[in-house]
């Protein structure tokens, strides 16, 4: 039984730790201004990893959060943050800012 457990653990670790080298992902930029995401809709290529650069132009912190994208990233006021997303299947993926969820909303459309 111990050997089986060991094999299972090693197998999972091996799956987690190995993988193909990826090309540099395309960069997509978005701003937070006056507690709004600008633009509020981003169109990105499907099945491609994206490097999303989020610039927070407001003096207060905001968060890029999306359960659908499995991402949660704080962007301190007047700073930027990097969020890697995808590769995404074709579809629409909502995101919002946790500090101002009523105004800071947007979608990523993968085509």
């Amino acid at each position: 039984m111990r050997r089986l457990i060991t094999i299972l653990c090693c197998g999972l670790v091996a799956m987690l730790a190995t993988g193909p080298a990826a090309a540099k992902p395309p960069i997509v930029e978005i701003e937070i201004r006056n507690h709004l995401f600008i633009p509020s809709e981003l169109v990105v290529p499907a099945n491609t990893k994206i490097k999303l650069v989020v610039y927070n132009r407001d003096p207060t912190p905001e968060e890029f959060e999306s359960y659908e994208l499995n991402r949660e990233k704080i962007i301190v006021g007047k700073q930027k943050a990097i969020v890697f997303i995808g590769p995404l299947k074709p579809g629409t993926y909502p995101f919002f800012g946790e500090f101002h969820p009523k105004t800071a909303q947007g979608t990523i459309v993968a085509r």
Partner: protein
Amino acid sequence: MRRTGPLRRSRNWLVRVLLMPAFLSPALLQNVLADGGSVDKVYHPYVYQLERELELRSVVQDDDDPVRDGTQTWRLGIGQSWTDRWFTELYVIGEKTDGRDLSVRAWELEAKWQLTEQGEYWADWGLLFEFEADHDIDAWEASTAVLVAREWGRWVGTANLALIYEWGADVNSEWETRAATQLRYRWKPGLEPAVELYSGEDTKGLGPVLMGNVRAGGRRQLHWEIGVIFGLDSHSTDQTYRALVEFEF
């Protein structure tokens, strides 16, 4: 943590702990020296900036062995992230054993270091450093764990591989290794089912876990986990129940 054996101190523990990642290897899992109690929780490698949390978690053992049966371990912690890479948490650890009421057993300081951005590489990586001081006896424990996570669509696999060193006048100085893995399905924010596998010398366990998040307005939310881990061999506790609540604010 055994309370018997020769009295021996180690003065080079710090060097050993710092070198732990270099020694971490799945092969070590075959020679684990753990004293049991490996069932706890599975850590993800992520740090969220500006996060503070209060955490309460418990592990209860249910076993034919009357010494183990009913043993409860409780952790109450307060944590805070300092940057988008570092998170620390301080725990007070309580234990209730057969014939002894719940009392403080130890204090623990934990630091998590997120090494890679989520989704940047094929897997996401982090390190967890823990330092535990026993409350009543001369027993210390330091550990380094590699945290790794990988997404497959709605499925997320997470593994923690820890190398631990125990020392002190009242315990055997020894190395231990522990492994904890989790396969989780991101069904919806309020409910995510998972399967967890734990491995230590006296614990080989596998079982289902449920978890979820409940939003409490603004950035405040409650994270909960509950599960039962079934022992897979005669050395392991028959059933270990675990529960966790975290209030993030």
